[in-house]
């Protein structure tokens, strides 16, 4: 089917001002992505995959303006965690604010530098996982990212990383339109934790490709938010080898528009992938979790846990799919998406999907939307807990199942504290 002209026109307008860097292995990967993109055009709200989230602000030629934001009433997330800091200011790597990029157990480089070399491990990752993730559902914003990313971080874990790598995104310009592309390779038996936080830009388009070899373990914890006007489209593409582990948790607090796509390929046998998200939105907040998990290996386990707390007209979206390929026997797939609507103005739209071509599998999904449990609220108040604190306790309890997916207790505690602060600021 030919691509509608409007989609191609939108694409032409969007990329008109962007630099297309040629040369080297990276140039070749970019050219392939551009070709993919040209065959898709940009998404519109009429696309099935964008039915609940209007991509207009994500595809417009100019990023909508967004006031910069720096929290002064609390330390940034992960502040107390011992980590290797990699700081980007409006998408530009800042060596002065960053730590020295050396850490036992990993190799870490900038995309802009590594892309110039002839031979690099990232050639086997950059754009390849994204390309795999384009079927059966097209993800044009991810292809656009691969073609036009200006910077990114490449991390290869060869052993146990001595501490987490922390990607910090600062936002200083009201019109910044940032495209970053990270590649991560976890070698056999290696382990790495990547943290992400910060507003990044007025508009942030990000791809993270994660290639995990047999027995590798990858943990991802990110905190998006507090910058109320940000727009973000993020993608994680992960490919899991045998007996490997992938765990990702995202806290989203505020942001005008956030679309977080996660595409997981359980290729080897006995892989484990857990994806969790806690989103809290007050007012102009549109948050979309779109997840696609493919079970190809035997005995793999996948778990999706997404919870959203919404008030004052905030909108939450969940599109989650589990695809079990022929032969992927003994698959264990679990998916839950729930929302807590704190008033009648807010909205939660969920589209859970299962597509199963193997006969010996265990898959379940559930989706609910509800209000604060009035009986539990009265019980707490009857024990002397003031109403606001009681509500806060119940909201945190609602979100607890997502935070439980974070293995590191200190990081989980930090996330919980920031959630608590958010609830306090937003009058619960």
């Amino acid at each position, binding site marked *: 089917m030919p691509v509608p002209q409007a989609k191609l026109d939108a694409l032409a307008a969007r990329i008109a001002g962007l630099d297309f860097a040629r040369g080297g292995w990276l140039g070749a990967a970019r050219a392939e992505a551009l070709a993919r993109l040209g065959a898709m055009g940009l998404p519109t709200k009429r696309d099935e995959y964008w039915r609940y989230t209007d991509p207009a602000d994500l595809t417009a030629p100019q990023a909508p303006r967004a006031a910069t934001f720096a929290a002064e009433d609390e330390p940034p997330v992960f502040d107390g965690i011992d980590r290797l800091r990699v700081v980007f200011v409006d998408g530009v790597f800042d060596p002065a604010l960053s730590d020295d990029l050396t850490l036992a157990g990993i190799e870490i480089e900038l995309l802009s530098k590594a892309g110039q070399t002839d031979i690099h491990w990232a050639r086997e990752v950059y754009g390849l996982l994204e390309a795999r993730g384009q079927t059966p559902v097209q993800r044009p914003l991810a292809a656009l990212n691969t073609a036009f990313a200006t910077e990114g971080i490449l991390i290869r874990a060869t052993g146990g990383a001595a501490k987490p790598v922390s990607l910090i995104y600062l936002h200083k310009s009201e019109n910044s339109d940032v495209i970053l592309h990270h590649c991560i390779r976890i070698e056999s038996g290696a382990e790495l934790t990547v943290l992400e936080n910060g507003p990044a830009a007025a508009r942030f388009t990000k791809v993270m490709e994660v290639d995990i070899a047999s027995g590798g373990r990858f943990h991802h914890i990110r905190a998006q938010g507090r910058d109320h006007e940000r727009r973000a489209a993020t993608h994680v593409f992960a490919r899991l080898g045998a007996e490997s582990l992938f765990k990702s948790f995202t806290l989203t607090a505020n942001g005008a528009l956030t679309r977080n796509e996660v595409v997981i390929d359980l290729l080897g046998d006995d892989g484990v992938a857990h994806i969790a998200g806690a989103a809290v939105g007050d007012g102009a907040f549109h948050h979309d979790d779109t997840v696609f998990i493919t079970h190809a290996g035997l005995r793999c386990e996948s778990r999706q846990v997404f919870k959203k707390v919404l008030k004052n007209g905030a909108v939450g979206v969940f599109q989650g799919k589990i695809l079990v390929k022929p032969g992927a026997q003994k698959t264990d797939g679990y998916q839950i998406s729930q929302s807590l609507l704190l008033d009648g103005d807010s909205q939660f739209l969920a589209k859970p999907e299962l597509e199963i071509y193997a006969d010996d599998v265990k898959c379940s999904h559930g989706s609910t939307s509800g209000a604060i449990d009035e009986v*539990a609220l009265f*019980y*707490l108040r009857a024990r*002397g807990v003031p109403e606001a604190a009681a509500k806060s306790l119940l909201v*945190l309890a609602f979100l607890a199942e997502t935070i439980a997916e974070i293995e590191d207790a200190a990081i989980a505690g930090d996330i919980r504290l920031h959630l608590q602060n958010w609830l306090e600021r937003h009058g619960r």
Partner: protein
Amino acid sequence: MLEISNLHVKLEAEDKPILKGVGLRIAAGTVHAIMGPNGSGKSTLSYVLAGRDGYAVTHGTATLDGEDLLTMEPEERAAAGLFLAFQYPVEIPGVGNMTFLRTAVNAQRKARGEAELSAGDFLKVVREKARALKIDAEMLKRPVNVGFSGGEKKRNEILQMAMLEPKMCILDETDSGLDVDAMKLVSDGVNALRDAGRAFLVITHYQRLLDHIHPDVVHIMADGRIVKTGGPELALEVEQNGYAGILAEAQ
């Protein structure tokens, strides 16, 4: 301590009177029991005193040590020293029992202008009181009432009461769902709290709980009113003859 005068209550949502002029005076150091058939308004009375939504007081007063209970928020009533042991204790997934207890104790201390208990002090006290009620460490760690048996839930109510040290304790059918051993355990917990500064209102269908928690005064409630008041012998009369005789006599 607790004074209720000519209390009329209806459901907020509909025009259906439930309490039709309840009067009750409970002095410090005493134990009162309210017995009565199903639907007589016993549980409604306990909910209205604790401040649950959904009821409208159309007439009358209720005070605790002279303070008007009915204008207070539920948490203010708790801080003033009122405690309701629920007939159906509520399950709260995601909130640890220990967190719940500590939040409640410290919220009340704060409301009364007292210093919060340190984590260490709190732990010491809670362990000691839990032991007396045969509540193990595992139960304290689990989410509030989730997966608890009927007996465990009721013991957990008494543990909360022991930790919060209220002056006016209302027990709403605390005996329901309890086997003989659990009833003994719960009653021992309640009796341990009896002292000159504290009063109890025990709501029950059956005399058997009153074998363990000896009341000073027994009231019979029917159709939204206290229809008869007497000593412990009144409970025995109910046990032997049922409510029919007493209700007929009251009319």
